């Protein structure tokens, strides 16, 4: 009867107090901060004369507004600059365990540098004023995206007011076929359960296909839990999880490491644990995924066609599909492989880690960007990812193909900096949201894996990456 899910264990370990109605305070281990959602929180603290509870829980970086032009040392947009400067000032005034400011060699996207620095460790509660905080669940963390009021609340009290979510497990059985990646898995899951399918739930991703993924791949899957409506996505601890943190700068050392590992090994759902909801997918039948609409659930595979809105029985969905096709400039029945692209974006907290760059480079090697593709941005997730990719020579593969090799940041995932689509431009993007205007007003986004994005850059239209991969892959 006492069997617990991973989520139950993480919840119980951090539960400070609980009211009879279930409203609880949970203790927060790690508070990640970036420039967009924090200024009003620091201002709130100041106005109320409050001090942060535990500044050593704070790790901060500037990522959303920073330029990614190689070597650019200045933020030209004065409004963006003010936000980044405000973060500098707030961290200086209030303190932090680590701060990776603009142009620090270890600066990068907050969800990339957290794990990379060991600031995120298994079993922690992690919060950030950013919905993609679910990424950190890949390490069996209880990681929530929060709003700015909650950022202020965590700064002031080290706690988050929460009600426990329901337990949901998404099991992906079987092995992944070649050319099918973590991104395809999560897009297929969202296609199955919908963008509100996980609302009110904490999702644990499990099964052979999830276990077979690298930590980078698991981060990609958990990153987009929020696109399935779930604030929290998680994967249980295994050897890969533990090996990932060996030698990371902020990971414990020596005897403390051993103690930590003993605890981390317990961070798995008990075999007889009960889930409120379970969804099962078979990985072996998956094909490379491409979104066609303006919601991540509007997805099909590379062998598919743009659907006919008339085929949707639900009038709300039919209406949404009609609007989406009008916005996307697509005709029903068009084969996905016949859709040309204007730009390609390889980056974002979903797909900007070393493995993503390797997967893209494997497709690009020895090939050139198609002439109709105006621009291909490759934006590594952090300074350290960039360095490693250069040590492996990946940047040369991209540059020789006519791609741009950029500096780290959120870039064209949400286009808060200068990297953006022009109205009507179509983009193959490795990011997480295909909402109207997300990559620039009027821009049209198709979400794909890094390998599929690279393939589209080479072909000039969407193409089945399985046809471009070396036979041995």
């Amino acid at each position, binding site marked *: 009867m006492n069997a617990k899910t991973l989520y139950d264990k993480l919840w119980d370990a951090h539960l400070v107090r609980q009211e009879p109605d279930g409203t609880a305070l949970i203790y927060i281990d790690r508070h990640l901060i970036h420039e967009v959602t924090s200024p009003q929180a620091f201002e709130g603290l100041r106005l109320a004369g409050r001090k942060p509870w535990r500044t050593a829980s704070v790790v901060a970086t500037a990522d959303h507004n920073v330029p990614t032009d190689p070597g650019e040392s200045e933020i030209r947009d004065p409004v963006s600059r003010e936000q980044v400067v405000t973060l500098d000032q707030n961290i200086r005034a209030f303190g932090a365990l680590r701060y990776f400011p603009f142009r620090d060699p270890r600066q990068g996207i907050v969800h990339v540098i957290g794990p990379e620095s060991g600031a995120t460790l298994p079993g922690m509660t992690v919060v950030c004023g950013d919905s993609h905080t679910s990424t950190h669940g890949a390490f069996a963390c209880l990681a929530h995206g929060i709003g700015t009021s909650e950022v202020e609340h965590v700064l002031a009290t080290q706690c988050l007011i929460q009600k426990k979510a329901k337990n949901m497990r998404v099991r992906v059985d079987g092995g992944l076929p070649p050319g099918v990646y973590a991104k395809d898995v999560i897009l297929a899951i969202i296609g199955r359960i919908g*963008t509100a399918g996980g609302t009110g739930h904490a999702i644990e991703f499990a099964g052979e296909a999830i276990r077979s993924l690298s930590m980078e791949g698991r981060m990609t899957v958990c990153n987009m839990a929020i696109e399935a409506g779930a604030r929290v996505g998680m994967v249980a601890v295994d050897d890969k999880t533990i090996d990932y943190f060996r030698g990371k700068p902020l990971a414990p050392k020596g005897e403390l490491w051993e103690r930590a590992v003993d605890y981390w090994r317990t961070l798995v759902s008990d075999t007889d644990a009960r889930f409120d909801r379970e969804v099962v997918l078979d990985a072996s039948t998956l094909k490379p995924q491409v979104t066609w609409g303006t919601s991540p659930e509007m997805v099909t595979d590379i062998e598919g066609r743009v659907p006919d809105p008339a085929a949707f029985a639900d009038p*709300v969905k039919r209406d*949404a599909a009609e609007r989406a096709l009008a916005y996307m400039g697509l005709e029903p029945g068009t084969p996905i492989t016949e859709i040309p692209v204007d730009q390609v974006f390889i980056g974002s907290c979903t797909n900007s880690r070393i493995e993503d760059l390797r997967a893209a480079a494997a497709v690009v090697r020895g090939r050139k960007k198609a002439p109709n593709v105006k621009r291909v941005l490759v934006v590594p997730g952090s300074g350290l990812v960039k360095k490693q990719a250069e040590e492996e020579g990946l940047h040369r593969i991209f540059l020789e193909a006519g791609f741009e090799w950029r500096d780290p940041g959120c870039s064209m995932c949400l286009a808060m900096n200068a990297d953006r689509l022009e109205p009507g431009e179509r983009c193959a993007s490795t990011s997480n949201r295909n909402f109207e205007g997300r990559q620039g007003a009027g821009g049209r986004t198709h979400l794909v894996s890094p390998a599929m994005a690279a393939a589209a850059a080479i072909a000039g239209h969407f193409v089945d990456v399985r046809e471009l991969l070396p036979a041995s892959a």
Partner: protein
Amino acid sequence: MEKFIRLDALVAPLDRANVDTDAIIPKQFLKSIHRSGFGPYLFDEWRYLDHGEPGMDCSKRPKNPDFVLNQPRYEGAQILLVRENFGCGSSREHAPWALLDYGFRALIGPSFADIFYNNCFKNGLLPIVLPTEEVDRLFRECEAMPGYRLVIDLPSQTITTPEGRVISFEIDPFRKECLLNGWDDIALTLRHADEIRRFEEAYRARHPYYFVEESAA
């Protein structure tokens, strides 16, 4: 936070599902370091025909006549009827700030995205969940009757339509108390500061590896 007790207000219908927070307040306006001033840019890409940037004088911008909030009959609406999964996507609290700054005090829909829903309560904006059929009916009534108003009474958890139909809604008791009193969450939590401190000490003893840098310092 402003209290929410009773609201008797004009209703506007926003008939689309999965309205995301990028649509509610586009990213270029997130560069502000303040909590206010987002109202003129609410639904910016749908509301105006030109491209909006922070600092623009919105009174001079060309409005999209097809967008529902630009129709004179909905001017001054404080209640917004919405469809499923409203507020999905980014955690930006700028979304409820923009809705409030525009003048909305309540939202009624079949479902809301988790983070957005939570953010609303922190700002005195009341999101009400009703069954889909009930929301459908409100949409029909609202569109059929110019000047359609609803009375939302939080203490009794009811909505009253112009014809006197009374609809009950559910709300979390803690959130209800906070809204009725306009309470500040942080002050409430800090009443338990000693308990948090005791928890923290015990937790630190159990999991010293999460406090490595502090012990070294």
